[in-house]
């Protein structure tokens, strides 16, 4: 699929998740999510590994929501803990809402390369060019950032090793000692990043780079029939949600 369509549909899905407010509307959204996972071609094991960590955070939020909710009929009461029927219902709805949004983002992340996401964001923002918003400059910055993330991760692991060799302890000690140890990573990291920026700036100037010039792109993504079918399906489900919600 075209990355522009994928990003737009992910945002659209997030929007319709907030419209759902009863069991049927959530069931429809789950159906759409399952269809999307199936057609994305992502391995189900890889998919659940991707959302496992976030699911844990969502579950904690839901448990707190259920245990301390005050609205509705009380089912169980022990000290400050009060479980009500509405608390359980809203807890489950919150779990559905967050999980569905995370699923949509995970489908986008696992099925799209970072540079394709950057391309999509640039194209979506391109109408802002008319308002003299520097879309192409921002797009270049994102491309530079995505290109240099692996390089800087290598650098940061070298910095951590070097600081450990000098006696820095990142895992033990009180809060201040550990904050100090972590701060010792940041200055070398920023220096390395600035040195890379300096070299890159020189390279760009020496090759005659100019901003505010129309540029061609190495990768081209076309909108095909799969994109239109997906758009239509999402739109249909969105309309269903609007009619079904209370």
């Amino acid at each position, binding site marked *: 699929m075209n990355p522009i369509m994928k*990003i737009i549909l*992910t945002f659209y899905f*997030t929007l319709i998740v907030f419209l759902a407010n009863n069991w049927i509307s959530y069931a429809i959204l789950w159906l759409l999510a399952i269809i999307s996972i199936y057609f994305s071609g992502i391995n189900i094991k890889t998919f659940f590994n*991707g*959302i496992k960590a*976030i699911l844990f955070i969502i579950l904690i939020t839901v448990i*707190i*929501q259920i245990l*301390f*909710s*005050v*609205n509705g009929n009380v089912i169980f009461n022990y000290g*400050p803990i009060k479980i009500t029927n509405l608390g359980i219902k*809203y807890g489950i709805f*919150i779990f559905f*809402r*967050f999980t569905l*949004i*995370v699923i949509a*983002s*995970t489908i*986008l*992340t*696992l099925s799209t390369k970072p540079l394709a*996401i950057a391309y999509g*964001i640039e194209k979506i923002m391109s109408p802002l060019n008319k308002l003299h918003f*520097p879309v192409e*400059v*921002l797009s*270049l*910055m*994102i*491309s*530079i*950032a*995505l290109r*240099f993330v692996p390089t*800087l*991760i290598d650098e*940061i692991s070298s910095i951590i090793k070097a600081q450990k060799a000098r006696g820095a302890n990142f895992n033990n000690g009180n*809060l201040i000692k*550990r*904050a100090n140890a*972590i*701060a010792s990573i*940041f*200055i070398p990291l*920023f*220096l390395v*990043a*600035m*040195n890379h*920026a*300096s070299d*890159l*700036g020189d390279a*760009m*100037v020496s090759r005659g*780079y100019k*901003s505010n010039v129309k540029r061609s792109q190495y990768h081209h993504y076309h909108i095909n029939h799969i994109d239109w079918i997906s758009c239509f399906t999402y739109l249909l489900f969105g309309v269903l949600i609007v009619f079904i919600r209370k």
Partner: protein
Amino acid sequence: MIWKMKKLSVSDVAILGMLIAVNFILSRFTFSSKFLQIDFVFIVTALIGQWYGPIWDGIIAGLCDIINTLLSGGGYFPEFTVSAILGAIIYGYFFYARQNISWKRIIVAQLLVTIIVNAFLNTLWLLIINHQMPVSLLVIRLIKEVAEFPIQIFCIYVICNAQSIQRVKNSIDQK
């Protein structure tokens, strides 16, 4: 002057690209103790605010928030992008074009970010997203903000006043 969008040179574009890369890395690099887990993205935001002002800082913070969420696979909530932009504008307003930033200035800026953005706006967004929120969760959020406050001030002071970083930035500007 402070609300004018600074015209960027080629080197500035390279610096900002690199700082966005650091932002992506720091968003995944958390500092955790038994009771607290914080990330250090605010350092990059403070540094961009100091060098490029509130407008560029706000734009880049908003963009980073969107891309970070899309790349990490977490759920995207546009409300938090508003928080990221506002926090960056506050840093940019207080820190822009200052070689040395005083403790007082950092404390005031961080206090505003903590109260307006982290404590008020982010809690409001959570209330909107969850429809309701137990008081216990609000208390936990407030305790976290209070615990993070001194660490954030310390980190901003160290990085934004680091002579070695400022020297490299000045040498790039003079090219």
